[in-house]
């Protein structure tokens, strides 16, 4: 590798570091900052990070990682529609606090449905995220099967939980079975019907890769939590016994008794 090539590679790496990885790190940093010290500044930092990640396909087109920024920009619309829609449906119902008007329920339902239709349009219509024409964003193959499969699994689990643990929750359980069936139907359609850019064969292959991915994430995370628990347990076990203090004297006991007596009972009105 000559010096010129090395310089070009360094430039690309530096660009990716400055315009992709620093914005990526701004998101958790902003969230952490918003929880600990300044909520407004933290949210601004996280928001700026998200915007810069979404812009990364234009700011650092040479970096393969910017495909994730492109996917984020493509799916953030439908995802926000779904999340805000569910929020509107939830809080326009019977909630003790933060109740929204009843009319928000219909708007929320429409927003959620629009979000799902938009995501489905990315598979079976022309909305598929493409970095270059006719080349599907590689991370779309990761996102879509993972989302569909896990939604189906979680909704099914929630439906059974409502039936087994909840009391008189049959209606709610039916709704959850319906959501699970809807996701499952989309999975089956994906496995059998080609989209304009994603074929059924591609989808099938990526569905099982998504299963492997999820299993790996669960096992890796559980292992890490176990190590964390082991580290804390070992540290706490090796701590010396706390020093015993002398028992209270008579005057201290009298003072405590007087304090307790002052705070017991109530005043007669």
């Amino acid at each position, binding site marked *: 590798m000559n010096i010129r090539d090395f310089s070009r590679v360094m430039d690309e790496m530096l660009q990716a570091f400055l315009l992709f990885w620093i914005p990526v790190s701004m998101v958790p940093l902003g969230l952490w900052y918003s929880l600990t010290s300044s909520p407004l500044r933290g949210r601004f930092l996280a928001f700026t990070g998200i915007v810069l990640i979404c812009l990364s396909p234009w700011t650092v087109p040479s970096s393969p990682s910017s495909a994730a920024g492109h996917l984020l920009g493509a799916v953030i619309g439908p995802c926000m529609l779904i999340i805000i829609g*569910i929020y509107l449906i939830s809080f326009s*119902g019977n909630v003790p606090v933060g109740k929204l008007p009843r009319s928000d329920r219909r708007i*929320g339902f429409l927003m959620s449905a629009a979000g799902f239709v938009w995501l489905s349009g990315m598979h079976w219509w022309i909305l598929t995220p493409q970095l270059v024409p006719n080349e599907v964003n590689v991370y779309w193959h990761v996102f*879509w099967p*993972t989302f569909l499969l896990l939604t189906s699994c979680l909704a099914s689990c929630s439906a059974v939980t409502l039936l*087994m643990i909840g009391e008189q929750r049959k209606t709610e359980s039916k709704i959850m079975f319906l959501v699970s069936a809807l996701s499952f139907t989309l999975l089956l359609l994906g496995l059998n019907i080609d989209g304009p850019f994603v074929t059924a064969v591609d989808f099938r292959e990526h569905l099982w890769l998504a299963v492997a991915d*999820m299993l790996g994430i669960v096992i890796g995370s559980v292992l890490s939590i176990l190590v964390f628990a082991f580290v804390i347990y070992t540290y706490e076990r090796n701590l010396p016994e706390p020093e015993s203090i002398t028992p209270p004297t008579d005057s201290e006991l009298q003072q405590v008794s007087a304090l307790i007596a002052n705070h017991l009972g109530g005043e007669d009105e």
Partner: protein
Amino acid sequence: MKESNLVLTWRMMLLAFFLPPLLILAIEVTFFGEFKGIDSGISFTRFANATLTAFTLCSLFLLGNLYFYGESRNRPLAPLVGMFMATGFGVLATVFFIGQGSMLLEDNGSVRAQAIYNIVHLFVSSGAISLSLCVALGVTFSAITSQKQRSSFELEEE
């Protein structure tokens, strides 16, 4: 709840969770007579990469959480060193296994490219997992709140 009922409930919940993929497998076997689209080699590579990356990033996250733990413990160094070693072990294991060649190397040319791809891949998967959790929990909550209000306590009849 009796212990036997509790065990049954957990089993039913687990079965319900795994029902969709099992159903897809059953349909595949019934209609095609085989598991189409499963390449055990590629699936294992994906699984191993996901495990190593999740372990490393989760350890890093928990290392950050030790900051809050240290606040109530006079800032001890021992747990920090322990979690730092766990994270370091994750990084070294990732680099070592990817460096072994085609076992964990996907369509990327170098160890660094594969490691960065793994991290971005994990972010995307985590995003999809988070959205599914939001949808499942949100719809459950909205299904519950859409029903008639129930009183928590039976009113005493006077």
